[in-house]
Protein backbone atom coordinates (compact mmCIF):
# COMPACT_ATOMS: atom_id res chain seq x y z
CA UNK A 1 0.00 0.00 0.00
CA UNK A 2 1.41 3.37 -1.05
CA UNK A 3 1.86 6.12 1.56
CA UNK A 4 -0.33 9.20 1.20
CA UNK A 5 1.74 11.51 -1.00
CA UNK A 6 -0.99 14.15 -1.28
CA UNK A 7 -0.60 16.72 -4.04
CA UNK A 8 3.02 15.63 -4.61
CA UNK A 9 2.18 12.07 -5.70
CA UNK A 10 3.05 12.71 -9.36
CA UNK A 11 6.59 14.14 -8.85
CA UNK A 12 7.52 11.59 -6.17
CA UNK A 13 6.26 8.59 -8.17
CA UNK A 14 7.83 9.99 -11.38
CA UNK A 15 11.22 10.31 -9.63
CA UNK A 16 11.12 6.72 -8.35
CA UNK A 17 9.77 5.35 -11.65
CA UNK A 18 12.52 7.04 -13.69
CA UNK A 19 15.14 5.65 -11.30
CA UNK A 20 13.76 2.10 -11.51
CA UNK A 21 13.46 2.19 -15.32
CA UNK A 22 16.96 3.62 -15.94
CA UNK A 23 18.78 1.56 -13.31
CA UNK A 24 16.80 -1.57 -14.21
CA UNK A 25 17.78 -1.13 -17.87
CA UNK A 26 21.45 -0.63 -16.96
CA UNK A 27 21.48 -3.71 -14.71
CA UNK A 28 19.76 -5.89 -17.34
CA UNK A 29 22.08 -4.75 -20.15
CA UNK A 30 25.18 -5.21 -17.95
CA UNK A 31 24.21 -8.77 -16.93
CA UNK A 32 23.18 -9.73 -20.50
CA UNK A 33 26.44 -8.43 -22.02
CA UNK A 34 28.41 -10.20 -19.32
CA UNK A 35 26.64 -13.49 -19.97
CA UNK A 36 27.02 -13.18 -23.76
CA UNK A 37 30.76 -12.39 -23.52
CA UNK A 38 31.32 -15.34 -21.17
CA UNK A 39 29.58 -17.70 -23.60
CA UNK A 40 31.46 -16.36 -26.65
CA UNK A 41 34.83 -16.52 -24.90
CA UNK A 42 34.21 -20.09 -23.69
CA UNK A 43 33.33 -21.14 -27.27
CA UNK A 44 36.47 -19.49 -28.71
CA UNK A 45 38.77 -20.97 -26.02
CA UNK A 46 37.29 -24.41 -26.68
CA UNK A 47 37.90 -24.01 -30.41
CA UNK A 48 41.48 -22.87 -29.77
CA UNK A 49 42.20 -25.90 -27.58
CA UNK A 50 40.93 -28.23 -30.29
CA UNK A 51 43.14 -26.58 -32.91
CA UNK A 52 46.30 -26.81 -30.75
Amino acid at each position, binding site marked *: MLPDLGKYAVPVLAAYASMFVL*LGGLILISFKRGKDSKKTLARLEEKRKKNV
Partner: protein
Amino acid sequence: MSIWEFANPVRFMRLSGRLLPWFTGLTVLTLLPALYWGFFLTPDDARQGATVKIIYVHVPTAFLAINIYFMMFVTSLIWLIRRHHVSALAAKAAAPIGAVMTLIALITGAVWGQPMWGTWWVWDPRLTSFLIMFIFYIGYIALWAAIDEADKAADLTSILCMIGSVFAIVSRYAVNFWNQGLHQGTSAPLLRPGEETQVSAVFWQPLMLSIAGFFMLFLVLLLLRTRTEIRKRRITALRAREA
Protein backbone atom coordinates in the same frame (compact mmCIF):
# COMPACT_ATOMS: atom_id res chain seq x y z
CA MET B 1 51.03 -7.89 -1.75
CA SER B 2 50.95 -4.76 -3.91
CA ILE B 3 47.73 -3.24 -5.27
CA TRP B 4 49.35 -3.25 -8.71
CA GLU B 5 49.12 -7.04 -8.80
CA PHE B 6 45.39 -6.60 -9.46
CA ALA B 7 46.27 -4.76 -12.65
CA ASN B 8 46.99 -8.25 -13.97
CA PRO B 9 43.76 -9.27 -15.81
CA VAL B 10 43.94 -12.90 -14.63
CA ARG B 11 44.32 -11.87 -10.97
CA PHE B 12 41.60 -9.25 -11.38
CA MET B 13 39.17 -11.82 -12.86
CA ARG B 14 39.92 -14.27 -10.03
CA LEU B 15 39.47 -11.71 -7.25
CA SER B 16 36.41 -9.98 -8.77
CA GLY B 17 34.78 -13.37 -9.38
CA ARG B 18 35.08 -14.11 -5.65
CA LEU B 19 33.88 -10.65 -4.57
CA LEU B 20 30.88 -10.29 -6.91
CA PRO B 21 28.42 -12.62 -5.08
CA TRP B 22 29.24 -10.96 -1.73
CA PHE B 23 28.88 -7.46 -3.14
CA THR B 24 25.60 -8.40 -4.83
CA GLY B 25 24.24 -9.74 -1.54
CA LEU B 26 25.34 -6.58 0.29
CA THR B 27 23.66 -4.43 -2.38
CA VAL B 28 20.34 -6.25 -1.92
CA LEU B 29 20.69 -6.00 1.88
CA THR B 30 21.33 -2.24 1.83
CA LEU B 31 19.59 -0.72 -1.20
CA LEU B 32 16.18 -2.39 -0.94
CA PRO B 33 15.69 -1.70 2.81
CA ALA B 34 16.97 1.88 2.31
CA LEU B 35 14.45 2.60 -0.45
CA TYR B 36 11.64 0.92 1.51
CA TRP B 37 12.57 2.89 4.66
CA GLY B 38 12.79 6.16 2.80
CA PHE B 39 9.64 5.77 0.74
CA PHE B 40 7.28 4.05 3.18
CA LEU B 41 8.49 4.76 6.72
CA THR B 42 9.67 8.39 6.77
CA PRO B 43 7.32 11.32 7.48
CA ASP B 44 6.65 14.28 5.20
CA ASP B 45 8.83 17.36 5.66
CA ALA B 46 7.19 20.45 7.17
CA ARG B 47 8.09 22.65 4.17
CA GLN B 48 8.62 20.21 1.32
CA GLY B 49 5.80 17.77 2.07
CA ALA B 50 6.10 14.33 0.46
CA THR B 51 8.63 15.56 -2.12
CA VAL B 52 11.34 15.01 0.53
CA LYS B 53 11.12 11.29 -0.36
CA ILE B 54 12.92 12.13 -3.63
CA ILE B 55 16.05 12.78 -1.53
CA TYR B 56 16.69 8.99 -1.23
CA VAL B 57 17.11 8.75 -5.00
CA HIS B 58 18.40 12.21 -5.94
CA VAL B 59 21.24 12.62 -3.42
CA PRO B 60 22.82 9.12 -3.80
CA THR B 61 22.75 9.29 -7.62
CA ALA B 62 24.18 12.84 -7.64
CA PHE B 63 26.88 11.76 -5.16
CA LEU B 64 27.80 8.82 -7.39
CA ALA B 65 27.63 10.86 -10.61
CA ILE B 66 30.45 13.10 -9.32
CA ASN B 67 32.48 10.38 -7.62
CA ILE B 68 32.32 7.95 -10.55
CA TYR B 69 33.83 10.69 -12.70
CA PHE B 70 36.56 11.12 -10.08
CA MET B 71 37.18 7.34 -10.13
CA MET B 72 37.44 7.51 -13.95
CA PHE B 73 39.92 10.39 -13.58
CA VAL B 74 42.14 8.29 -11.29
CA THR B 75 41.99 5.13 -13.43
CA SER B 76 42.59 7.17 -16.60
CA LEU B 77 45.64 8.75 -14.95
CA ILE B 78 46.92 5.28 -14.01
CA TRP B 79 46.49 4.21 -17.64
CA LEU B 80 48.37 7.26 -18.95
CA ILE B 81 51.24 6.85 -16.47
CA ARG B 82 51.57 3.08 -15.91
CA ARG B 83 49.76 1.63 -18.97
CA HIS B 84 47.72 -0.91 -16.99
CA HIS B 85 44.97 -2.16 -19.30
CA VAL B 86 42.60 -3.07 -16.46
CA SER B 87 42.55 0.55 -15.27
CA ALA B 88 41.61 1.85 -18.75
CA LEU B 89 38.92 -0.84 -19.05
CA ALA B 90 37.60 -0.01 -15.56
CA ALA B 91 37.17 3.63 -16.62
CA LYS B 92 35.39 2.49 -19.79
CA ALA B 93 33.14 0.18 -17.73
CA ALA B 94 32.30 2.94 -15.23
CA ALA B 95 31.25 5.58 -17.79
CA PRO B 96 27.75 4.22 -18.63
CA ILE B 97 27.05 3.75 -14.90
CA GLY B 98 28.09 7.36 -14.27
CA ALA B 99 26.01 8.62 -17.21
CA VAL B 100 22.89 6.82 -15.92
CA MET B 101 23.46 8.13 -12.36
CA THR B 102 23.87 11.69 -13.72
CA LEU B 103 20.70 11.35 -15.83
CA ILE B 104 18.70 10.06 -12.84
CA ALA B 105 20.02 12.95 -10.70
CA LEU B 106 19.05 15.46 -13.42
CA ILE B 107 15.54 13.98 -13.89
CA THR B 108 14.78 13.60 -10.18
CA GLY B 109 16.18 17.08 -9.56
CA ALA B 110 13.86 18.53 -12.22
CA VAL B 111 10.73 16.78 -10.90
CA TRP B 112 11.68 17.88 -7.35
CA GLY B 113 12.50 21.41 -8.44
CA GLN B 114 9.21 22.01 -10.24
CA PRO B 115 6.94 21.94 -7.15
CA MET B 116 9.59 23.50 -4.84
CA TRP B 117 11.15 26.20 -7.03
CA GLY B 118 8.31 26.56 -9.52
CA THR B 119 10.54 25.58 -12.45
CA TRP B 120 11.97 22.38 -13.94
CA TRP B 121 15.31 23.94 -14.74
CA VAL B 122 17.43 27.02 -14.05
CA TRP B 123 20.93 27.83 -15.31
CA ASP B 124 22.18 27.61 -11.77
CA PRO B 125 25.98 26.89 -11.40
CA ARG B 126 25.48 23.42 -9.93
CA LEU B 127 22.76 22.35 -12.38
CA THR B 128 24.65 23.70 -15.39
CA SER B 129 27.95 22.05 -14.42
CA PHE B 130 26.04 18.79 -13.86
CA LEU B 131 24.53 18.99 -17.34
CA ILE B 132 28.00 19.63 -18.83
CA MET B 133 29.35 16.65 -16.86
CA PHE B 134 26.57 14.49 -18.37
CA ILE B 135 27.59 15.67 -21.86
CA PHE B 136 31.20 14.69 -21.05
CA TYR B 137 30.04 11.23 -20.00
CA ILE B 138 28.20 10.81 -23.33
CA GLY B 139 31.20 12.18 -25.27
CA TYR B 140 33.55 9.79 -23.43
CA ILE B 141 31.34 6.76 -24.27
CA ALA B 142 31.01 7.90 -27.90
CA LEU B 143 34.79 8.37 -28.25
CA TRP B 144 35.47 4.81 -27.03
CA ALA B 145 32.91 3.53 -29.58
CA ALA B 146 34.36 5.61 -32.41
CA ILE B 147 37.99 4.37 -32.27
CA ASP B 148 38.83 0.80 -33.27
CA GLU B 149 42.37 0.65 -31.94
CA ALA B 150 42.05 -0.08 -28.20
CA ASP B 151 45.20 1.65 -26.87
CA LYS B 152 44.60 4.76 -28.96
CA ALA B 153 40.97 4.87 -27.74
CA ALA B 154 42.20 4.52 -24.13
CA ASP B 155 44.70 7.38 -24.61
CA LEU B 156 42.21 9.81 -26.17
CA THR B 157 39.35 9.00 -23.78
CA SER B 158 41.73 9.43 -20.82
CA ILE B 159 42.63 12.92 -22.02
CA LEU B 160 38.92 13.74 -22.52
CA CYS B 161 38.26 12.45 -19.00
CA MET B 162 40.95 14.75 -17.57
CA ILE B 163 39.35 17.77 -19.25
CA GLY B 164 35.85 16.80 -18.09
CA SER B 165 36.99 16.33 -14.51
CA VAL B 166 37.02 20.14 -14.17
CA PHE B 167 33.21 20.06 -14.46
CA ALA B 168 32.96 17.21 -11.94
CA ILE B 169 34.89 19.39 -9.45
CA VAL B 170 32.75 22.41 -10.32
CA SER B 171 29.59 20.27 -9.84
CA ARG B 172 30.77 19.34 -6.37
CA TYR B 173 31.87 22.80 -5.24
CA ALA B 174 29.72 25.10 -7.40
CA VAL B 175 27.62 26.25 -4.44
CA ASN B 176 30.76 27.18 -2.45
CA PHE B 177 32.42 28.95 -5.41
CA TRP B 178 29.54 31.18 -6.40
CA ASN B 179 27.27 31.15 -3.35
CA GLN B 180 24.31 31.81 -5.62
CA GLY B 181 21.66 29.90 -7.54
CA LEU B 182 18.59 27.99 -6.43
CA HIS B 183 20.27 24.73 -5.53
CA GLN B 184 20.95 24.33 -1.82
CA GLY B 185 24.29 23.24 -0.34
CA THR B 186 25.13 19.62 0.17
CA SER B 187 22.40 17.62 1.91
CA ALA B 188 24.67 15.06 3.47
CA PRO B 189 27.74 16.80 4.90
CA LEU B 190 30.40 14.78 6.65
CA LEU B 191 30.02 15.19 10.36
CA ARG B 192 32.76 17.00 12.21
CA PRO B 193 32.91 17.29 16.00
CA GLY B 194 30.56 20.00 17.20
CA GLU B 195 28.66 20.25 13.93
CA GLU B 196 25.16 19.13 13.21
CA THR B 197 23.84 17.65 9.99
CA GLN B 198 21.67 19.91 7.87
CA VAL B 199 19.12 17.11 7.56
CA SER B 200 17.01 15.81 10.46
CA ALA B 201 18.01 12.33 11.73
CA VAL B 202 14.67 10.89 10.62
CA PHE B 203 15.65 11.64 6.99
CA TRP B 204 19.44 11.43 7.42
CA GLN B 205 19.63 7.78 8.56
CA PRO B 206 17.75 6.24 5.60
CA LEU B 207 19.63 8.66 3.33
CA MET B 208 23.01 7.32 4.54
CA LEU B 209 21.79 3.74 4.05
CA SER B 210 20.57 4.66 0.56
CA ILE B 211 23.96 6.18 -0.34
CA ALA B 212 25.64 2.96 0.90
CA GLY B 213 23.21 0.84 -1.15
CA PHE B 214 23.72 2.82 -4.35
CA PHE B 215 27.50 2.70 -3.79
CA MET B 216 27.37 -1.10 -3.43
CA LEU B 217 25.30 -1.30 -6.63
CA PHE B 218 27.96 0.77 -8.38
CA LEU B 219 30.69 -1.63 -7.20
CA VAL B 220 28.70 -4.65 -8.46
CA LEU B 221 28.09 -3.06 -11.86
CA LEU B 222 31.70 -1.84 -12.09
CA LEU B 223 33.16 -5.30 -11.42
CA LEU B 224 30.65 -6.97 -13.72
CA ARG B 225 31.23 -4.55 -16.60
CA THR B 226 35.05 -4.52 -16.18
CA ARG B 227 35.02 -8.33 -16.34
CA THR B 228 32.96 -8.07 -19.55
CA GLU B 229 35.46 -5.60 -21.04
CA ILE B 230 38.40 -7.89 -20.18
CA ARG B 231 36.60 -10.84 -21.83
CA LYS B 232 35.81 -8.73 -24.90
CA ARG B 233 39.51 -7.80 -25.18
CA ARG B 234 40.40 -11.52 -25.06
CA ILE B 235 37.69 -12.34 -27.64
CA THR B 236 39.14 -9.71 -30.00
CA ALA B 237 42.64 -11.17 -29.54
CA LEU B 238 41.47 -14.73 -30.22
CA ARG B 239 39.52 -13.68 -33.32
CA ALA B 240 42.56 -11.79 -34.62
CA ARG B 241 44.66 -14.97 -34.22
CA GLU B 242 42.04 -16.99 -36.10
CA ALA B 243 41.91 -14.56 -39.01
